[in-house]
C-alpha cells in the first residue's frame, strides 16, 4: 500500500485540526488571522499535490492521476479564493471563526478524496464528508433566519438525495456484484445487459448526482440556500460543491458506464436542456444578485451537462476546463458582491446603480467576470464554452448546441442588466466601496485567471487533456 499518495489529503486534514487547535488559544479579536493561516495550508497542499506521485492505493479505491490532480487544484483554488473573500466577512459577522475555516478545509479534503476515488462506496463517503461540512457552513449565520433555513433545507434535501444515490449504487452493486468502477465496466461489457433494473439504478444515480449539481428539476434547494448562506460560502458552494458532484459523476459514468451509453445519454440531454432553459429564464426575473447568480450557476451546469452527454475525451477536457474558468469568473463575481455587501449591507441589484463612478475597479471587474460567464472572447469563459460546444458538435448534437447558444443570449440579457445598472445609471450614493487586501487578492487572482486562460489557454488545455485520457472511451 502506497500511503505517500494521500499525503496532500492527510496534510490538509491535519491543517484543519491545527486551525481548530490554534483557535482555542487565540483571543477573539485576533481570530481573523486564522484565515491567512488556512490560506498557507492550502498553498502548501497545492505544492504537495503537484509534487506527490501518481499511482493507486487501497486496492482500486484511490487513484492519484491527472484527473484527480486537475480537480484537486480546482477545489483547492476555489477554497483559497473563498477563504480570501471570507476574511472580512467572517471578522464582521461570524462567531466561531476557527470552526468556519476548519470546515471549509475539511470539505475540501472530502472533495479531493472524491475526485481520486474509483470505487462507489468510498466515493459516497467522501461526498458525505463534503456535503455535511457544507450543511453546517450554510447555516453559519445563526441569528439570521434565512441562513438557518438555508442550512436546514440543504441538509434535508441533501440527505434525501444521498439516500437516492445510495439506493442507485446498491442496485448497481446488485447487478454487477462489485462497487469498483473498473469491475462494473467489465461486467457491463461482457453481459447481455441492460435490463430494466440497470435503467432504474442509472436513474437513481443520476438523480442523486443532479441534486448535488443543482440540475433542473433537482435544483429547488439551490436558490434558497445560495441566498441564505453566508456569501463566501455561496461562492464556494456554487463552484466547489458543483465541481465535486461533477468529478464523481464523470468518474462514475465515463469510468464504468460507457458500455451502456445509450441508456443514460438521453437522460443527460434532457437534463441539460431543462437546466439551461429554466436556469437562464428564471435568472432574468431576479432582483437579488445572489439569487440571480444562483440561477446563473444552475444554467452554467446545463452547459456542462451538454458536454457530459457527448461522452468523449474532448468532452471530459472541456468540462474540466469549463469548471476551472467558471471557478475564476464565479468566485470573482461573488468577491465583488461580497465587497459591496460588506460596505453597504445589501444584495439588491438596483443598489448597484452607478457603481462605475463609486468604484471603477469593482465595476469593471464585475463586467469582466460576467462577460466571461456569458462566454465573450477573449475571456476564459469563451474558451470554455467553445470547447463544450465543440465536444457536442463532434457527436452531431446540433439542436442541443442550438439551445445552448440561444440560452447564452438570454444569459447575456440578465448579466448585462447588472452592467446597465453600474454604468448607465447615476449613483444614489457617492462614497467609494472599500475593498480589503484579501478581497483584492481574490479579485486580482480571479481576473488574472479569467484573462490568462482566455488569451493563452494552451497549457491549461494540454494539462487537462491528460486528465481526460484517464478514461477509455
Amino acid at each position: 500500500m502506497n500511503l505517500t499518495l494521500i499525503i496532500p489529503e492527510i496534510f490538509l486534514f491535519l491543517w484543519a485540526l491545527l486551525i481548530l487547535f490554534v483557535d482555542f488559544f487565540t483571543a477573539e479579536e485576533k481570530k481573523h488571522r486564522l484565515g491567512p493561516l488556512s490560506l498557507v495550508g492550502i498553498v502548501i497542499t497545492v505544492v504537495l499535490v503537484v509534487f506527490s506521485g501518481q499511482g493507486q492505493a487501497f486496492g482500486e479505491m484511490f487513484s492519484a492521476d491527472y484527473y484527480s490532480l486537475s480537480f484537486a487544484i480546482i477545489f483547492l483554488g476555489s477554497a483559497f479564493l473563498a477563504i480570501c473573500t471570507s476574511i472580512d466577512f467572517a471578522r464582521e459577522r461570524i462567531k466561531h471563526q476557527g470552526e468556519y475555516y476548519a470546515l471549509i478545509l475539511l470539505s475540501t479534503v472530502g472533495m479531493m478524496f472524491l475526485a481520486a476515488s474509483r470505487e462507489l462506496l468510498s466515493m459516497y463517503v467522501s461526498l458525505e464528508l463534503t456535503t455535511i461540512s457544507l450543511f453546517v457552513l450554510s447555516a453559519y449565520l445563526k441569528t439570521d433566519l434565512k441562513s438557518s433555513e438555508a442550512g436546514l433545507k440543504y441538509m434535508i434535501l441533501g440527505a434525501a438525495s444521498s439516500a437516492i444515490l445510495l439506493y442507485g449504487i446498491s442496485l448497481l452493486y446488485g447487478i454487477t456484484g462489485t462497487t469498483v468502477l473498473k469491475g462494473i465496466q467489465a461486467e457491463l461489457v461482457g453481459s447481455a445487459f441492460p435490463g430494466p433494473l440497470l435503467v432504474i439504478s442509472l436513474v437513481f444515480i443520476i438523480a442523486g448526482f443532479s441534486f448535488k449539481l443543482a440540475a433542473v428539476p433537482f435544483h429547488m434547494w439551490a436558490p434558497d440556500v445560495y441566498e441564505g448562506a453566508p456569501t463566501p460560502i455561496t461562492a464556494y458552494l456554487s463552484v466547489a460543491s458543483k465541481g465535486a458532484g461533477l468529478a464523481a459523476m464523470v468518474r462514475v459514468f465515463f469510468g464504468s458506464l460507457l458500455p451502456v451509453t445509450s441508456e443514460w445519454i438521453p437522460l443527460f440531454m434532457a437534463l441539460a436542456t431543462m437546466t439551461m432553459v429554466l436556469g437562464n429564464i428564471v435568472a432574468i426575473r431576479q432582483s437579488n444578485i445572489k439569487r440571480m447568480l444562483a440561477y446563473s450557476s444552475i444554467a452554467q451546469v446545463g452547459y456542462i451537462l451538454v458536454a457530459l452527454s457527448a461522452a468523449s475525451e474532448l468532452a471530459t477536457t472541456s468540462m474540466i476546463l469549463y469548471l476551472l474558468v467558471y471557478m475564476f469568473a464565479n468566485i470573482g463575481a461573488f468577491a465583488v458582491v461580497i465587497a459591496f455587501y460588506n460596505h453597504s449591507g445589501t444584495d439588491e441589484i438596483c443598489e448597484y446603480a452607478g457603481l462605475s463612478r463609486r468604484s471603477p475597479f469593482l465595476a469593471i471587474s464585475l463586467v469582466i467576470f460576467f462577460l466571461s460567464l456569458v462566454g465573450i472572447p477573449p475571456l476564459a469563459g469563451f474558451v470554455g464554452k467553445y470547447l463544450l460546444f465543440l465536444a457536442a458538435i463532434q457527436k452531431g448534437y446540433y439542436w442541443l448546441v442550438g439551445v445552448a447558444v440561444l440560452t447564452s443570449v438570454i444569459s447575456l440579457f440578465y448579466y448585462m442588466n447588472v452592467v446597465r445598472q453600474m454604468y448607465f445609471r447615476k449613483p444614489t450614493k457617492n462614497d467609494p466601496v472599500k475593498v480589503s487586501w484579501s478581497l483584492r487578492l481574490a479579485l486580482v487572482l480571479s481576473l488574472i485567471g479569467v484573462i490568462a486562460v482566455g488569451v493563452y489557454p494552451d497549457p491549461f488545455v494540454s494539462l487537462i487533456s491528460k486528465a481526460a485520457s484517464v478514461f477509455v472511451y
Partner: protein
Amino acid sequence: MNMGESFPILTVVTFLPALGIVLLLLVDKNRQLLVRNVALFTSLVTFLVSLFLYFKFDPGTGDMQFVELYSWIPSLGMGYHMGIDGISLFLVLLTTFLTPIAIWSSYNAVTEKVKGFMISILALETGMIGVFVSLDLFLFYVFWEAMLIPMYFIIGVWGGPRRIYAAVKFILFTMTGSLLMLVAILALYFVNQSYTGVATFNLLDYQGIQIPFNYQIWMFLAFALAFAIKVPMWPLHTWLPDAHVEAPTAGSVLLAAVLLKMGAYGFLRFCFPLFPEATIHFIPLFSILAIIGIIYGAFVALVQKDVKSLVAYSSVSHLGFVMLGLFALNMQSLEGSILQMLSHGISTGALFLLVGMLYERRHTRLISDFGGISKVMPVFAAFFMIVTLSSIGLPGTNGFVGEFLILLGTFRENWLYAAFGATGIILAAVYMLWMYQRVMFGKVDKPENQKLKDLSLREKLILVPIVIVIFLIGIYPSAFTSRMEASVAKLMETVNEKYRVEEVMPQVQPRRDFQIDESQLEVSTHSFGGGEIHRGQ
C-alpha cells in the same frame, strides 16, 4: 507565403490601438485634453502605419499578403493567422482612416467620462481591424464578438435618451446571430477534419474541401444570419435605426462606416468561398431581400422627421445595394459592391459627422426645427451639399462608381433585379435632396437658428480629408479597383470551380457523427477526391 519572417505589420496595425489603451490607463482621467490627444495620436499613428499596407500591397496576386501564421492552441488547431487581400485591404484602411476622424469629432461632443470613451473607441478599432485581417475562424470569432462590448458601452453610456434600449437591442440581435454562426464554425471544423484528418480552424484550408450540399445549406444559413443582422438586411434591420439614432456621433460614424461592412465582408470572405453551391442556391432569396431593403429603406427614410434616423434608414437602402451586387456574383458587381462599401462608409460617416455638428449647435435633429441654415452657415452648407451628392451617387463622386458597377453587373445576371434596384437611386435623390432643401434653404424662420456659428477650424479639418477621398474615388476609382481585381477574380474562380466540380459529383450523404476513424477517412478521400485536388490552388 512567408510565415511571419518579415515585419508583422498586421499585428502592429491591429494592436496599436490596444497599446493606446495601455497609454490611456496611465493618464489621469481629469486631464481630458491629454486623454483626447493620446487617443487621437494613437489612431493617427495606426492610420499612418496602415498606409504602408496600401503601398506595399502587390496588386498582381489574389493570394493573401502580409501573412502571419503562428500556432495558438495547437492541441485543437487554433492558430494566430492573419493576412489581407484586395478585399480586406480597403476595409482595414477605411477603419484606420475613420477612427481618428471619429475621435477628433468627439472633442466637444463627449465631455463626461472621456477616458472611458476613448478606451472604448480604441478597443473597438482593434476589434474591427482584427475582424478584417483574421484568417483563422477562431481568431475571427474572438474579434467579432469582442468588438460588441465596446460598442455596447459607447451606445449605452454616451448615447441619447433611449440609449439603454438601443444598446440592449443591439447586443441581443448581434449576439444571437453570431452564436449561431459559432455553431456552424464548430461544425465546419469537424467536416474539415473528417475529410483531411487535420484539426484546424484555418480558413484557407477550409476552402479546399467540398462540403456536401445539404450541409452547405445549413452552414450558409447560420453564417448568413450573423452577417445579415450585421449588414443589416431587411427584415433584420430593426436594431439599426435605434442604435444609430441613440449612439453618440463618433459611435454612429464607426457603426455605419465599419461595423455594417463586416456583414458584407463576411459574405465575401466566408459564405461565398466556403459554401458556393448554397450561395448560388440562395441567390434569388438574398437578391429579393436586398431589393426590398433598398426600396423599403428609401421609403422609410423619406418620411423621417429626424435627420439622423433619415441617414440611418438610408444606410439600410445603401447596404441593400451592396448585397444586391454581392449576390449578382460577377466581377463588376462584386467590385462595385466592395467600392460601394467604402463609399457608403465615407459618405454616411460624413453625414453622421455633419448631423452631429448641427446637433452640437442646436441640440435637436428634427428637420422641422431647421430651415435656411445655408444662409447662417455657408461653409457647413457647402460640405453638406458635397456629401449629400456623393451619397446620392452623382457622377464624379464616390457613390456613383459603386452603384454604377453594381447595377451594370446585376443587369447582366437579371435585368429585373437591376431595374428594381435602380429605383433606389431615384428615391435616394428624393429623400436626400428634399431633406437638404428643408434644412438648408428657405427663410431662417426660427430665432434660434439665426445666431448659429459656422464650422470651426477643427470641424473643417475633419471634413476636408473625407471630401478629398470622395472625389478621389469618384474621379480615379482605378486606384482602388486595380488592387481588388486579382482578389475578386480569385474569389470568382473559387466559387465557379467548386460549383462546377460539385455538379459532376455524386450527391453525398451526410454522416451524423464526425469522429475520425481510419475506415471513414479511406471512404471520404475516395468519394470526395475533389477536395484534395483543389487544395492550394
